[in-house]
C-alpha cells in the first residue's frame, strides 16, 4: 500500500536539493577541516542556484503533493525564488564579514540553508502543521544565526530577545491553530475556508479567538506595531549579513504566510478586521518612520525603517483586492532586494571598522566611491523615487488603495514616505558631503572592497534599477501568482 508516490515529491524538489546541499556543507565542514571557507560558501551558492533552477522548472507545472499539502503554485514559486536569491546575496555578503569578525563556523552556511528551507515549506504548504514546522525550522536556524558571535554580548542579547519573543509568538500561533482546529475540525486551509463559510461559523467564539491569536502571532513575525519591539534590538545586535537576511527573506516569508493563511484562508471581510488592520498599518508606518528619524546608528535606523516598510505592505493588506495582493508581492520582492543591499553596505569595513553611526559614513565618496554610489541607489529606492523598484512598489500599493477609496490611508502613507526622505537623504549627505579623516593607526583600505560582496551589491543595485525601469515582468508574475491563490 503506497501512501506516497514519487510524484508527491516533485513540488518538493527545490527543498530536497537544498537539504542535500546543507548536508554536503555540514559534512564538508566536519570531515575536511582544511577546506577553505570559500569552498563552503561556493558550495552553498551552488546549492541555492540549483534549487533556483529547479524552482523555475516547476513554474506552470502546477505540481501538488501529499494529498494537496504541498503545492508549487505561482505564489509559492515566486516567493521561494525570492528567498533563494536573498540567500545567494547573503552568502556573498557574509564571506568578508565572517573573516573580519573571526566567525569561523561552517555551521553558519548550514543554518542559512536550513532557514531558507524552512521559509520554503512555510510558503508552499496548505496545511497549518507543515506551515508551523517550516516556521520553526526558519526561526530556530535564525536564532542561532543571530547569536553566532557567541562571545559578543550584543549578539547574545539579540539572540535571547529574538528567541524569547519568537517562542512567545509561536505559542500564540499554536493556540490559535488549536482553537481553529476545534472550530472547524481541520488544519488544512482549504477545508478551514469551507468550514468557515458555513452560515454562523464566524459567530463561533472559538473561531474568532483562534483567528485573533493567529493575527497576533503573525504580527510578531512580520514585526508590525505594536508587536515590533524586538525588531530594532535583534536587527542591530545580529551580525549584519544576518540582519540583511532576516529583514529581507524572513520578513517576506512572514508576509507570504500572512497572505496564505489570513487573506486567502480565513474570510476577513468583517469590518472588525478591516479596522484592526487599518490601525495596525497606520501605526506601523508612523511609529517606524518616527523612530527611524531619531536614531543615530544607521543599522538601527534601517531596522526601524524595515518596520515602516512593513507598514506600507500592511496598507495593501488592508485593501485586500487582488491588485493589492499582487502589490504585496511586488513590494516584498523590491524591499527584500533594496533592504539587503542597504544592510549589505554596512558589512564592509570602512577605516578599519564596520560602520555604524552616521559619522562613520563620512569619507565614503572619496575612499569608496563605488559603495557610496550603490548605497545612494538603495537609499533612493527606499525613499521611493522614480526609476527604482521602491517607486513602482509604492505606486502599486497606493494605486490599489485609491481604487478602493482608501483616501486617508493613502494620504497617511504618502506623508510617511515624505517623512522618510529626511533620514534616508541624511545617509546620502553623510556619504557625499562629509570629509572623512583617517583615524590614527587605522589601516586605510582604499582599494580593498571584498570582491564577493561587491558582486552581490552591484547585482542587488541592478535588480533595484531594473525593477524600477522594467517592472512589467515581475508585475505580471505577481498578478498571475495572486490568481493561483484563490
Amino acid at each position, binding site marked *: *500500500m*503506497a*501512501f*506516497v508516490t514519487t510524484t508527491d515529491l516533485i513540488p518538493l524538489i527545490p527543498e530536497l536539493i537544498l537539504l542535500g546541499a546543507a*548536508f554536503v556543507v*555540514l*559534512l564538508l565542514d*566536519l*570531515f575536511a577541516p582544511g577546506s577553505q571557507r570559500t569552498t563552503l560558501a561556493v558550495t552553498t551558492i551552488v546549492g541555492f542556484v540549483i534549487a533556483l533552477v529547479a524552482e523555475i522548472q516547476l513554474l506552470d507545472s502546477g505540481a501538488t503533493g501529499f494529498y494537496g499539502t504541498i503545492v508549487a503554485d505561482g505564489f509559492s514559486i515566486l516567493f521561494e525564488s525570492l528567498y533563494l536569491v536573498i540567500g545567494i546575496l547573503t552568502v556573498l555578503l557574509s564571506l568578508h564579514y565572517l573573516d573580519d569578525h573571526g566567525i569561523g563556523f561552517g555551521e553558519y552556511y548550514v543554518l542559512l540553508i536550513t532557514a531558507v528551507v524552512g521559509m520554503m515549506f512555510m510558503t508552499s504548504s496548505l496545511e497549518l502543521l507543515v506551515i508551523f514546522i517550516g516556521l520553526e525550522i526558519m526561526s530556530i536556524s535564525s536564532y542561532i544565526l543571530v547569536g553566532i558571535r557567541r562571545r559578543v554580548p550584543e549578539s547574545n542579547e539579540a539572540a535571547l530577545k529574538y528567541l524569547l519573543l519568537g517562542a512567545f509568538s509561536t505559542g500564540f500561533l499554536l493556540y490559535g491553530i488549536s482553537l481553529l482546529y*476545534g472550530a472547524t*475540525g481541520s488544519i488544512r486551509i482549504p477545508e478551514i475556508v469551507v468550514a468557515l463559510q458555513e452560515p454562523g461559523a464566524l459567530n*463561533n*467564539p*472559538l473561531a474568532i*479567538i483562534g483567528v485573533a491569536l493567529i493575527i497576533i502571532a503573525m504580527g510578531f513575525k512580520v514585526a508590525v506595531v505594536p508587536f515590533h519591539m524586538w525588531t530594532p534590538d535583534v536587527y542591530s545586535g545580529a551580525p549584519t549579513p544576518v540582519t540583511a537576511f532576516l529583514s529581507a527573506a524572513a520578513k517576506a516569508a512572514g508576509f507570504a504566510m500572512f497572505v496564505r493563511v489570513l487573506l486567502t484562508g480565513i474570510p476577513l471581510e468583517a469590518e472588525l478586521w478591516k479596522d484592526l488592520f487599518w490601525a495596525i498599518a497606520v501605526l506601523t508606518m508612523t511609529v517606524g518612520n518616527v523612530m527611524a528619524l531619531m536614531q543615530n546608528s544607521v543599522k538601527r535606523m534601517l531596522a526601524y525603517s524595515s518596520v515602516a516598510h512593513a507598514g506600507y505592505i500592511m496598507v495593501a493588506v488592508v485593501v485586500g483586492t487582488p491588485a493589492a495582493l499582487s502589490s504585496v508581492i511586488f513590494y516584498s520582492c523590491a524591499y527584500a532586494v533594496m533592504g539587503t543591499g542597504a544592510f549589505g553596505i554596512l558589512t564592509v569595513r570602512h577605516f578599519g571598522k564596520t560602520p555604524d553611526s552616521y559619522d562613520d559614513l563620512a569619507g565614503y565618496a572619496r575612499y569608496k566611491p563605488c559603495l557610496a554610489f550603490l548605497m545612494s541607489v538603495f537609499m533612493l529606492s527606499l525613499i521611493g523615487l522614480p526609476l527604482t523598484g521602491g517607486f513602482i512598489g509604492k505606486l502599486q500599493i497606493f494605486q490599489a488603495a485609491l481604487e478602493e477609496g482608501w483616501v486617508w490611508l493613502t494620504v497617511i502613507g504618502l506623508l510617511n514616505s515624505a517623512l522618510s526622505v529626511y533620514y534616508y537623504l541624511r545617509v546620502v549627505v553623510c556619504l557625499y558631503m562629509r570629509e572623512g579623516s583617517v583615524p590614527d593607526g587605522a589601516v586605510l583600505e582604499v582599494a580593498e572592497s571584498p570582491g564577493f560582496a561587491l558582486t552581490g551589491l552591484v547585482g542587488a543595485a541592478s535588480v533595484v534599477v531594473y525593477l524600477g525601469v522594467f517592472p512589467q515582468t515581475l508585475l505580471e508574475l505577481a498578478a498571475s501568482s495572486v490568481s493561483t491563490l484563490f
Partner: protein
Amino acid sequence: MTITNDYLPILILILVGIGLAGMFTIIGLVVGPKLRTREKAAPFESGFLGKGMEGYRYDVKFFMTALVFLVFDVEIVFLYPWTVQIRELGWFGFVASMVFISVLVIGLAYDWKKGALEWE
C-alpha cells in the same frame, strides 16, 4: 459539528480563566512579601546553597550531554507510531523511518566529530 452547543460557555470560561490567572498573579504580586535577597534572585538550584557558587563554572560536559540527550530523546517520539503500525505501513514506513533515522545519524556524527560526546 458535535460540539457546537457549548461554545459560549467556553468563551466565558476562557475569559474567567484569563481573569483568574491574572488575579492570582496580581494578588501574589501585591500581597506577597517582597524579600529581595540574593538567594531569592538566584535561579533555583535544587536545594543547593546559592552561596559559594560565585564564579563557579560547572563543567560544560554535563551541559553538552544534557542537550544532546534532550534532542535525541525527544526525536524518538516519531518512531513510536511507526513501531505500532509497522506491518500496516510496510516498506513505505520502513523507508520513511530510515530516512528520518539517517538524518539523526548525521546529527550524531556531527556531535561526535565536534566532541560533544567526549567525556574525558
